């Protein structure tokens, strides 16, 4: 039996594969648990998923509880809430983390509501610190840091009075730790008895395509917006990306206009990226777009409008028509030797 007060992670699986965000969270949980001198636990729910657990232990996980049932193959809210609520009541973790994915944002709030504890949404950073409130001093509290107000403010939220402290965490913001092959952790199957009433949702159809675009893993991203003008003209964006060895990104407006598929979308409702270099071509720089790329180490903005908000966060700005600027860029790079 593992110790109480652990840092617990809801390990999300999709079609039997553990999601990237869960590995990011286990890595972050390891950091937090080391600071708090406690253990990392995980809960993995699905059908025939136990084999996945072994690969997670090296991220510094002390115990993974595995709950398997044919009817748990795909996520639905009612039975997953039941399992998590019981696991939390039994093991009394001090912190529980969920990915801020469609699944995590469906599940986390139900659990918080059931347990009457706080839940901070869509965090981009987590830290440990002290907090004083109404003559009470709280030691080693989780600071849950998140953007709100459409990205215009960053709030630090705490929930010191009730355990566990819970948060959903944005995908792609926590760094994956390096696995330690010899790490000793337990894998503990847990049996649950369910009734039909625990499965009130029937998934009739589920269509999910793996992303073909690897924006998160790319060090250079060339993104196009409405200013690119057409699907055909995106060829120019692709050409610059290929020349520099990067990936192609896009604004939501470019996706909505049908210039490029949604997999390429950067921003609040797309992918969050922080490459070495981000080149924004014909993108105005709406706050929802910036939410997904403002952490890039270097930003180049190419725009005909010298007042476009993208220039406010860019390191290099070129006022001009992208159809004219990009060929010059390609030529300059090819001529570098």
């Amino acid at each position, binding site marked *: 039996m593992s110790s109480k007060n652990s840092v617990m992670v809801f390990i999300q699986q999709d079609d039997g594969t553990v999601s990237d965000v869960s590995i990011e969270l286990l890595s972050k949980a390891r950091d937090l648990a080391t600071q708090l001198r406690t253990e990392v636990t995980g809960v993995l729910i699905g059908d025939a998923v136990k084999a996945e657990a072994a690969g997670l232990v090296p991220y510094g996980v002390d115990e993974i509880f595995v709950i398997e049932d044919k009817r748990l193959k795909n996520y639905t*809210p009612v039975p997953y809430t039941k399992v998590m609520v019981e696991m939390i009541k039994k093991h009394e973790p001090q912190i529980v983390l969920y990915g801020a994915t*469609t699944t995590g944002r469906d599940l986390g709030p139900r659990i918080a509501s059931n347990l009457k504890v706080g839940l901070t949404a869509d965090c981009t950073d987590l830290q440990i610190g002290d907090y004083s409130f109404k003559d009470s001093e709280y030691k080693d509290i989780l600071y849950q840091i998140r953007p709100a107000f459409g990205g215009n403010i960053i709030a630090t939220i705490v929930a010191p009075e009730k355990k566990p402290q819970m948060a959903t965490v944005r995908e792609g913001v926590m760094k994956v730790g390096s696995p330690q092959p010899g790490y000793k952790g337990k894998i503990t199957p847990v049996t649950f008895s369910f009734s039909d009433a625990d499965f009130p949702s029937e998934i009739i159809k589920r269509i999910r395509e793996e992303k073909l675009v690897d924006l998160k893993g790319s060090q250079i991203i060339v993104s196009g917006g409405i200013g690119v003008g057409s699907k055909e003209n995106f060829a120019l964006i692709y050409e610059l990306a290929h020349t520099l060895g990067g990936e192609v990104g896009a604004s939501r407006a470019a996706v909505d206009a049908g210039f490029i598929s949604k997999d390429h979308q950067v921003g609040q409702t797309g992918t969050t990226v922080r490459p070495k270099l981000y080149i924004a071509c014909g993108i105005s720089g709406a706050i929802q777009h910036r939410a997904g790329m403002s952490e890039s180490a270097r930003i180049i903005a190419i725009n005909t409008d010298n007042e476009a908000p993208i220039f406010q966060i860019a*390191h290099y700005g070129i006022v001009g028509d992208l159809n004219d600027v990009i060929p010059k860029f390609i030529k300059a790079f090819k001529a570098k030797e």
Partner: protein
Amino acid sequence: MGLNLIVLVKQVPDTQNITGEAMKEDGTVNRAALPAIFNPDDLHALEAALEVKEAIPGTKVHVLTMGPPSAAQVLKESLYRGADFTALISDRKFAGADTLATSYALKCAIEKIGTYDIVFCGRQAIDGDTAQVGPQTAEKLGINQITNVSSIEKVDPKKKELVAKRSIEGGFEIVKASFPLLLTVNDEEYVPRPPSVIKMMSYKNAGVGGDESAYDESYLNSAGTERNKDIISLWDIAAIHARVESCGLAGSPTKVKKIESVILKSEDIKMIENTGEAIADMVHELIADHTLG
């Protein structure tokens, strides 16, 4: 056999269209200067409910909002679009609520309405940005939910069930579930209808009345005329039988420790001439600092 539908709507500051006037000198946003609007996703949720009402005769659409007196505006706008009943849940004791306390108050208000088949929420509000209130309310009511719904494919009033399409990363799911059920609706497929001119004329003077008068703010008094003064119900904490200790700041486990405004301006931008030479210089600089390889 009509259905009983409930739509939860929120009035929010318009955080998406920040104009120069709402920007402070230091590049941060002056939140107080943002206009108050109908939360965008909630217009999609209302539209989904109104389309069900049109398809199934005898269906009633009830719209609830929790907020200060000025939030009555989103209820008026719901009446203009075809809501049958509206209530403003308002009490000073609700102030400072986090999502847990908000969902508790909404649950109490929904139970005051009594029987219902489907509760519609927006997916997310554009100020708190949490998307938590829908699922938390469903859990408190002890009912099933489908979140991030882009469209309702089929409603069967006899079997009391529906089929909905929900978006997931990289695709979608088609889900069947029975009533009572809570849905959170996204902005992908429903096209919110504009207000009806005829309804605007008849509800123009709709005012807020109710079980008890929790407020005597001039806004409420000035809004009413004799004819349809009390069209919008006003429910305070006693009216919805809520426990004080579970509402507002007292019922909220999360506390805001610190708020930092995001500075929307960077200090050092280098403007590059749109000439082959200047662009080549920039490329060389980026190669030299290993950004480009």
